[in-house]
């Protein structure tokens, strides 16, 4: 499931734009190719256009401009009931006046399957989500997690090749959510279906997806596998949105080899990895992941003094809030294991990081 899917894309958004009121573009120039069997997550804050994209794919919204293609076929003018796409809704949308069995049987009924075939498939789908004995219950008699499974089974029962999921785990508690993440992931692997998943929960996106598309302001900010997204964010928004992030503002002073020298706000310089900074003289923002910072470790060109402002004990690690280069929101995670120095509030410590781990990005 490599990222090179442009030749045989299963789902393809081609320069798609969407506006509801003719004044504001909710989706601006969306280009996205999803390979067959891939699990792609659309991640972004609310209002970033990710749900709109999903609705356009499902057929509930029409693209204002551009093409959406499914298996090479433009689907802009195909009504939703003919697209054959499974979908799990945020509130599950299980029909309250039907039993679980009738809910699952509905998509098969409208497809004209006979009774025995329907019963067989419904039974199989329910067993797939371990809900076989609930066939005669009403949705209102099920817990949130059980409803979630039924919704999943209903989206899969007519064997669609593409399944859309719109924040399906949003209403569940943390433990159940994590459990369901694995179940959905395993189902995806077992059935070989293509999944487009929408969420605003980054840990969900990182655990489940083959690739994550980070949405903001109607555009995909970065489309990459989870590890790349975290380790190598391409712009400040992604660095900010995914995981924890330390920011240092500065101005580009010069380039040296594959490194950039940045003059920081407090007058000091810092060597960084020029990912997305401008030429000499332009403003930039350096992003450093908390776990890439050493305290009293090896000396690098970026070693500096830090004042310890706050310590939060979290069991397996200690979160330290430091003042570094005038930024007093600088976070470092110190593992709570043997051989690590234990800091005291108020003391001054030496912190350092590699130039490769300091990514100079566009200013916010």
């Amino acid at each position, binding site marked *: 499931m490599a990222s090179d899917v442009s030749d045989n894309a299963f789902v393809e958004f081609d320069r798609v734009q969407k506006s509801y009121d003719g004044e504001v573009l909710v989706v601006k120039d969306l280009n996205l190719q999803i390979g067959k069997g891939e699990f792609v997550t659309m991640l972004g804050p609310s209002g970033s256009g990710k749900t709109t994209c999903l609705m356009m794919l499902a057929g509930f919204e029409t693209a204002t401009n551009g093409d959406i293609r499914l298996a090479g076929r433009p689907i802009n003018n195909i009504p939703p009931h003919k697209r054959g796409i499974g979908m799990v809704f945020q509130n599950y949308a299980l029909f309250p006046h039907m039993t679980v069995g009738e809910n699952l049987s509905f998509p098969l009924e409208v*497809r004209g399957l006979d009774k025995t075939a329907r019963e067989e498939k419904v039974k199989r789908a329910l067993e797939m989500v371990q809900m076989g004995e609930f066939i005669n219950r009403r949705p209102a008699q099920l817990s949130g997690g059980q409803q979630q499974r039924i919704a999943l089974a209903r989206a899969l029962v007519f064997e669609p090749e593409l399944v859309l999921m719109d924040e399906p785990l949003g209403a569940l508690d943390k433990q159940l959510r994590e459990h369901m993440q694995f179940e959905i992931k395993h189902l995806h692997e077992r059935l070989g279906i293509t999944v487009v998943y929408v969420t605003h929960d980054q840990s969900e996106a990182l655990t489940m997806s083959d690739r994550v598309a980070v949405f903001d302001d109607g555009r995909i900010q970065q489309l990459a596998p989870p590890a790349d997204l975290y380790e190598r964010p391409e712009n400040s928004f992604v660095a900010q949105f995914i995981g924890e992030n330390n920011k240092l503002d500065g101005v580009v002073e010069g380039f040296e080899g594959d490194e950039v020298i940045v003059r920081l706000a407090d007058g000091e310089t810092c060597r960084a990895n020029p990912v997305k900074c401008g030429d000499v003289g332009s403003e930039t923002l350096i992003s450093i992941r908390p776990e890439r910072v050493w305290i009293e470790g090896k000396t690098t060109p970026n070693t500096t003094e830090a004042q310890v402002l706050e310590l939060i004990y979290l069991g397996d690690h200690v979160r330290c809030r430091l003042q570094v280069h005038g930024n007093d929101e600088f976070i470092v995670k110190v593992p709570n294991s043997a051989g690590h120095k234990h800091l005291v509030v108020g003391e001054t410590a030496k912190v350092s990081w590699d130039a490769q781990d300091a990514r100079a990005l566009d200013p916010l």
Partner: protein
Amino acid sequence: MSENVPADPHVAIVTTAGGVEDGALTISDGTPLKRALARAQSHARRKAFLLVLPLLAFIILTFVVPIFQMLYRSVDSPNFHDNMPNMVAWFAQNPSGTEPDETAFTALVEDLKLLKKNRKAGLVGTRINYELPGSRSLFTKGARKAAKLEPPYKEALLKIDPKWSDPKLWQVMRSAASPYTFNFYLAAVDRTRDADGKIVRVNENRRIYLKLFGRTLVLSLLITFMTFILAYPIAHLLATLPLRKSNLLMILVLLPFWTSLLVRTTSWMVLLQSQGVLNDAMVALGIVSDDHRIQMMYNKIGTVVAMTHILLPFMVLPLYSVMRTINPSYVRAARNLGATSWTAFRRIYFPQTVPGIAAGALLVFILAVGYYITPALVGGADGQLISNLIAFHMTGSLNWSMAAALAALLLGGILVLYWLYDKLVGIDNLKLG
């Protein structure tokens, strides 16, 4: 904690209710748990009762008491029984079918003298007249001349009016002699007792009540159906439009509520009468000729049109309140699962609106069955409902017992329909908002 018995029984229950003594739960001071709980709650219950007391008194005084009075009046028939003691005694001694002999006529003349003395001849005559029209004058004339009559009374009385020997009259008097009667109910279903006391249908030209009950039922069902057909799309629109637009539409729906019923009804008269706006427009457009103006008022059409309009909000509001709670994602899910928009409506949306339809239909139907003023104004002879006849008996013929019997039958009919409805739809499925 247990050595220190708290004053508040709630606390005591918490501390020791777990212990079972002699099979019954007790609190720490030995009082049974149930009694302690009742004592603790009685104060709150008394206060709550005092709050609802004014309403309760109001309802009993203005609703429950009048209804029972009405039901009593429909079987109560004291006039003959109280004012004709000798006749009542004779009827008691002689079984039904006995030919009235001289003793009977003696009793009758004695009673007629009493009527003259007490000035009650009109009252008794009216009572007999209800069941045998034309007999009121028999009693007033008889009472006037009774004092001068000489035995044998039978001959003397028959000389005044031969109708006195009519076996039908004697049958009516016999049934009126009882202080309670079901004859008003018989009359209300177009039945009467013949000379032998058997229940038979009245003459063809006098059968009106059953026909009117039937018409009331049919028209009410028709009006309910019409309001449903008209209200369903409006309610759907109200529930799905953006809030600002739906508020405006809601005002338009409620506007008739804020207008006087009389004004609304008369405006329909202006629109629908043969010289009215609608007919004039059609004549002007050449759709109908001037000589063949369509009669849309003072018949069933007028009643149905005006009542449908007036009762429409009662259907829209329950439907709207139910539709508003239906999440649009249900229909989306159905479409996504492969249903056409029609199938999604039929299988998913419509079944979920049934509670609203049930509530609206019941509301409109019950209101329509008892509707009075609109059919009275626009119904003409053809569009009258049973309530108009009840009003006629209340204010026109002054036969309150008959009005009461008709009203009781209407009430009973609605209760039966309600019961049927509960069996078919289920009252728990009702949703008014």
